[in-house]
């Protein structure tokens, strides 16, 4: 039944852990849409024929009462809200990666995709992932807005310059699946394609091992020293000119504005590029901006290094 409906609706393969669940909701909603549209049309055709004006004009009769009105509206509302509830639950799942997900950084630019793996390996256009293991994709863009779209996974997320967005998936079968750019980005938009290559875990391990580069967190440690971050930020938990990095990742911090923020990838990256934007209570606004000094991959490496120093429970 699933296969029949999937092909009838011309959907691509269901190659991620989300795809089947999303498709079942798809079948339900679109099935109802077809049924309601067809029924309305048949009903109108029937009414147009039965109540058409004859040589003897019949006086209009048959009134449909308010009870029916309220019942129909109520029933429709309940159906819509139920779909929304299911859909929104799925939506939240797409944005809640498991803790053990492999984190792969993606930088989009006109008109290509670049990938950085935890072990420092990098690639363009082809994103290799292990089958059966959760993968979190962390996106940003170097120029205009792009959108990372894998139809076979039923997943899409915009890559926005100056922001970090993410989604996660588990590939369920080995194979090659298109990555398309879904946000219009100029003349090369329709050619900004890549591939997800889902490999059995052993093959994936072999590939990453053969493309080993300095560990991303190690690279981040070296960069932190080179750029002078560690002159103010300690890594052992002692506070100095600036907040310590130990246990910083994921911690909730009070800002001078009274807001509370979570020190996630987005916040840490923002603090490098625009340090005064969200200042933590108890510290002076002395940090310079690293905008234009740190490249995207370098900033990602430093975030990865901070993460390796432990996360607050």
């Amino acid at each position, binding site marked *: 039944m699933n296969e029949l409906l999937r092909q009838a609706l*011309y959907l691509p393969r269901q190659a991620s852990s989300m795809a089947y669940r999303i498709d079942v909701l798809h079948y339900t909603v679109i099935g109802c849409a077809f049924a309601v549209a067809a029924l309305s049309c048949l009903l109108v055709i029937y009414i147009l024929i039965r109540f058409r004006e004859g040589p003897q004009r019949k*006086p209009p009769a048959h009134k449909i009462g308010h009870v029916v009105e309220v019942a129909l509206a109520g029933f429709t509302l309940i159906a819509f809200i139920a779909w929304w509830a299911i859909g929104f639950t799925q939506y939240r799942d797409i944005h809640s990666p498991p803790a053990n997900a492999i984190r792969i950084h993606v930088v989009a630019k006109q008109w290509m995709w670049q990938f950085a793996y935890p072990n420092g390996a990098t690639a363009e256009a082809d994103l290799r992932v292990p089958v059966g293991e959760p993968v979190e994709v962390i996106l940003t863009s170097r120029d205009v807005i792009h959108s990372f779209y894998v139809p076979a996974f039923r997943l899409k997320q915009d890559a926005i310059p100056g922001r970090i967005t993410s989604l996660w998936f588990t590939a369920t079968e080995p194979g090659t699946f298109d990555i398309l750019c879904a946000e219009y980005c100029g003349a090369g938009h329709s050619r900004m394609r890549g591939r997800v290559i889902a490999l059995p875990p052993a093959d994936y391990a072999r590939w990453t091992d053969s493309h080993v580069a300095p560990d991303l967190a190690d690279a981040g440690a070296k960069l932190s020293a080179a750029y002078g971050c560690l002159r103010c930020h300690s890594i052992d938990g002692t506070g100095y000119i600036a907040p310590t990095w130990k246990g910083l990742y994921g911690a909730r911090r009070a800002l001078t504005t009274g807001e509370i923020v979570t020190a996630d990838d987005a916040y840490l990256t923002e603090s490098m590029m625009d340090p005064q934007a969200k200042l933590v209570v108890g510290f002076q606004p002395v940090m310079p901006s690293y905008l234009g000094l740190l490249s995207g991959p370098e900033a990602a490496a430093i975030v990865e290094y901070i993460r390796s120093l432990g996360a607050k429970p």
Partner: protein
Amino acid sequence: MNFWNEPRGVRSWLLTTDHKRVGVMFFFAVSLFLLLGGVFALILRLSLVTPNNALVDAGTYDRLFTHHGIIMVWLFLIPSIPSTFGNLLVPLMIGARDVAFPRLNLASFYVFIAGAIIVLVALFAGGVDTGWTFYTPYSTATPTAIVWVAIGIFVVGVSSIFTGLNFIATTHAMRVKGMRWRDLPLFVWTIYGTSIIMVIATPVLGMTLLLVGADHVWRLGLFEPNTGGDPVLFQHLFWFYSHPAVYIMILPGMGVVSEVVSTMAHRRPAWYGAIVVATIGIAVVGFLTWGHHMFVAGMSDFDVGIFGVLSMLVAIFSAIKVFAWISTLYGGSITISTPILYVFTFIFLFVFGGMSGVAVATTSLDVHWTDTYFVVAHFHFIMVGGTITAFLAAMHYWFPKITGKMYSETWAKLGCAVVSGGFIVTFTPQFLLGNHGMPRRYATYPPDMQWLHVISTIGAFLLGFGLVMTLVYLAAAWVNGKPAGDNPWRSASFEWRSPSPPPHENFAEPPKWTSGPYTYPEDQA
């Protein structure tokens, strides 16, 4: 003597303050823009027949879809029904001699033309490649003529606001003595709701486009992350106008359908109160759903949830209207005419298109569909199919009112069949393309999708042929048609109580409130 030939002379037309003449001039202008936007659409469809786009290069393709969108949205869809049929009929329907501010009304026409000329000169002299949504930071960096297009759309927006103000004042102040709000024809209610949206939302669009222009010229960096700006802020501002704008397009269409259904069934609209509440509900709640255009733009999950549920609420108001139309027809005494056939097509497109809207508001499904042809098909079904079929229903319903002539029913029914068929053949395959993962604004595409693109292109030409055919037989009827009589549909509504075509100040003698716009003597129920 009627408004066509009294007073005489070109000058009397160019300086007219008669709402009917302003409406007629708007009609010719927007019809021209419909055809122009349609030509761009046909070139687009032709270039998509082959996967590698044998017709035009990618840069040209990007300009073509941008021009198609800009012309259709701002020069056709937004003014289509309010500025033409709203102008022609609102005063007649409430028993007034004219709109509240006749000179402002004429100004709205000339301001519209001025804005349209700026837009068209910019499009033809330089062109724009951003898409009609002007997303930053692409639009602030593009070397194309974005600034002039933004200024042109700003000016067109001013015309929209003039029109909206006029209808609000007219509805409040100009009703015939004795006509209460609860007697107001449903078409007038929808024009009233539309006007509220125009007056409140359009300034936001104007400001936003000026900011984009300023960003482009002076590199202010408002939407540019390198200088501390936020590209997503633009999307919020843009959709704060552009989502309600969808209701500017469709609400008047719903009003037309309510009128046609009541007249052709010869009875009072069922559930009048519910339709009014739904009309105002759409106008108000429509302002709170803009975020559903941005489900994958990195909004917080909380925001996504709220925008999702509010979008469902707007859909309910639309559903109530459909129930009410069917309920009016059920048990009526129905004249099978071309307008009612267009209403039939409208109901199909509106119900399926609307349900596909509920589908894309279901957040997890939207993740797959957003920015694909599914969304293209969805909004063409509902806002384009809905608006165009309502526009055509209005054209055929009020044609005898405005021209005093009757068209050939045979040709008209044939035209309706071709237009409806063409529309469905064009856009149904696009739902499947979206399912398969075909993103919007792609100049080239994976070859396995070709067959659906070919079907869609055939449908587009059928639709274009149907529209041209309609214009031809209506023009012929205008010249040679049989006299229609004052009230060929035997409608009880106020606009049919004056001669057809109406005289200069609408009513030969001051109209009196004797019975409501929906009082049919034979209506027993």
